[in-house]
């Protein structure tokens, strides 16, 4: 019954294309149609990760001072993460309509758990001795946070950011359910065509790898003291 529902795109051309094969010449001629979905995918991923990072980082700093906030925030973010992405996109539609807003609300809510948990554990893992030494030097609570605790927590924070980013690239591939496009849309439209799946899927994986390496590079730049000790 389902086969009748999924409409396969009709392609005219040589046998490779009509047989849904992997055709380098088709890919060369049609690469342009993937450019816009690709940049939409980049937009969704980067915006969601930046917004999610800012929200979760602020929540983690707040919970660092007011410790009773940790269980409710971490449980809420874990439950949000537990909702299947396709379902969350659709559940939001009646409230926020089709488009970027719906997609971003869902994507941001999935990044929270990684960033919040890692920032919190990173801050908790700062050695007592470093904090004592900083207090002894006369640092105020704010100076202590920004000059000692946050820098020492950076490896954990970046680890959370990297997991959040690669996960978001994958979830943004389903954002077309919210009407927000992305690389998932061409895959969904013509899932039986090997060339189509190879290009769109390849771009997804490539995007995840490039963003991951970029964050890793940023981490190296921001934590020069860790380069000395292998």
């Amino acid at each position, binding site marked *: 019954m389902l086969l009748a529902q999924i409409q396969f795109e009709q392609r005219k051309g040589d046998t490779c294309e009509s047989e849904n094969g992997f055709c380098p010449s088709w890919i060369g001629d049609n690469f342009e149609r993937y450019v816009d979905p690709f940049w939409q995918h980049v937009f969704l991923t980067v915006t969601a990760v930046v917004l999610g990072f800012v929200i979760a980082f602020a929540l983690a700093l707040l919970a660092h001072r007011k410790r009773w906030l940790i269980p409710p925030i971490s449980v809420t973010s874990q439950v949000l993460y537990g909702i299947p992405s396709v379902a*969350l996109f659709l*559940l939001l539609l009646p409230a926020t309509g089709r488009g970027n807003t719906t997609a971003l609300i869902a994507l941001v809510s999935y990044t929270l758990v990684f960033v919040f948990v890692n920032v919190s554990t990173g801050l908790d893992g700062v050695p007592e001795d470093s904090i004592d030494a900083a207090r002894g030097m006369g640092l105020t609570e704010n100076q202590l946070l920004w000059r000692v605790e946050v820098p020492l927590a950076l490896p954990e924070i970046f680890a959370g950011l990297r997991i959040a980013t690669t996960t978001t690239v994958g979830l943004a591939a389903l954002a077309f359910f919210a009407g927000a496009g992305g690389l998932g849309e061409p895959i969904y439209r013509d899932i039986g065509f090997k060339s189509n799946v190879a290009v769109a899927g390849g771009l997804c994986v490539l995007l*995840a790898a490039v963003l991951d390496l970029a964050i890793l590079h940023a981490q190296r730049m921001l934590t020069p003291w860790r380069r000395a000790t292998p």
Partner: protein
Amino acid sequence: MAEGHPLSATLQLASFVGEFADALDFLFHERESVSGQTEIGGSELFHLTGNHLALSAASVGLAALIAVPLGLVLGHYGKGEFAAINASNVGRAIPTLVLLAVFVAYLGIGFVPIMLSLALLALPPILTNTYVGTRQVERDSVDAARGMGMTDAQLISRVELPLALPIIFAGVRVAGINVVATATIAPLGSVDSLGTPIIAANVYGRDGRLGAAIAVTVLTLALSAGLAALQRAVTPRGLKLAPTRSRRHRLLTPLRRRAEATP
């Protein structure tokens, strides 16, 4: 109605509530499909849920059948650490839709390709957790078992497997939740699941689409809670007696990039 008029907000809320009410009605009562040929909704969802769970169970079962023995053997001999630990990281970088689409495009539609793609999705967390669980068994216990004359095979099955079981099960739980969530898009490969009303929206209509989204959410959250309870149940009593970390610490297990194991 003018923008900002007090009535317009009320109407918007009413239509919002109405859409969810219609979706719930779809879940509990049969109705005719959009084109009017078949009965959809209500009891039909038992069939879809059954298929959804059967597909998920087959996929996770297959993954566990491969990953648990492999992880136990690798962990026992301490080989292949890099591959076993990084499997999860590589797995996370490949979007589920891409994984499924590659199997559909290159192997074709039907139960087997979809099951294989979901099994591949389930494999990394189970492998990583089995490996880590086996490695973290206390060396004293292993030495004592060796002193009693156990062979490698006995050591694996009678000492390492039981002691690693809670961590292995945590991997199976994470894999299972991922697979049940992803089985929603199985209809893309012509396999019926609770995602069918979502993918075949021209048969099921808006109510069916939203209703299925509600059903998938409830199923996943219930399964997640159920498996967490089961995990506590399969933990050997001896391990429960061991001094546990503080409650706060358990809520916040760090997610490292080179993820040790999923909590």
